[in-house]
């Protein structure tokens, strides 16, 4: 479909994968501990097939790993998959834009104090 071609696939990269709020919620749930699908589904109030679908997308872009343990499959956050996002948010431009934003706030505050 033309519409589908125009839009980037959710599995294209980490950016597209985390554009979906439920998938970000899953990543947050997986932070620091592995979980099984039913556990994630309970925590989110979603059904298991829907959660499995999101987990598949997250696995394809390398944000989540699966760790089979007996009959269970435990999912965990693979933080290395976030490195492109981490890098993107942490560049020179961002750093200095935020610093200068703080400078602006500070300069305005000092002027208000002087006026008093």
């Amino acid at each position, binding site marked *: 479909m033309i519409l589908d071609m125009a839009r980037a696939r959710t599995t294209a990269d980490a950016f597209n994968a985390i554009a979906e709020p439920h998938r970000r919620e899953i990543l947050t749930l997986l932070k620091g501990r592995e979980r099984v699908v039913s556990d994630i589904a309970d925590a989110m109030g979603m059904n298991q097939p829907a959660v499995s679908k999101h987990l598949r997308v997250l696995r394809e872009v390398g944000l989540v790993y699966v760790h089979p343990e007996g009959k269970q499959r435990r999912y965990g956050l693979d933080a290395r998959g976030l490195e492109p996002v981490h890098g993107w948010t942490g*560049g020179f431009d*961002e*750093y200095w834009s935020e610093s200068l934003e703080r400078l602006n706030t500070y300069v305005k505050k000092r002027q208000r104090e002087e006026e008093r």
Partner: protein
Amino acid sequence: MTPDTALSDRELMVSRLIEGPRDVVFEAFTEVQHLSRWWGPKGFTTTTRTFEFSEGGVWEFTMHGPDGSDYPEWIQWMEIRPPEVIVLRHGEGPDDPEQFSSTFIFEERTDGTRVTLRSEFKTKALRDRAAEEYGAIEGANQTLDSLATYVTGRSERPNE
């Protein structure tokens, strides 16, 4: 150098209007009590060990990220021309081979002061890296913030 000189492929530039007179804006760069209030991205704090605002003087400090990580910082002022220009060398220490040079330009505008920062790196590769991961900070989105923070604390994953 003016803010409008064309950028080379070893430079990065950022500019914004600060809503205040030039002498007040310039002053915010001259003392630790001011610098510590704004230097660094949102959520960052600084601890200063040495500070002497003069040409050849040094500012040695640690930047503390919101995720608890520390970044050693070393700055030496090369040129101070109040209230127009500050040129400094920036690195992790005096012997840091990846030191770079930064020029702050302060221009009067009717509605405030335009502050332009131009940083020049030793190589294009260093410039490109700084463009992508300067300081390694988090973005605005809170979820991404906490997740990105987690990246730095997690270097290995279990065997699959």
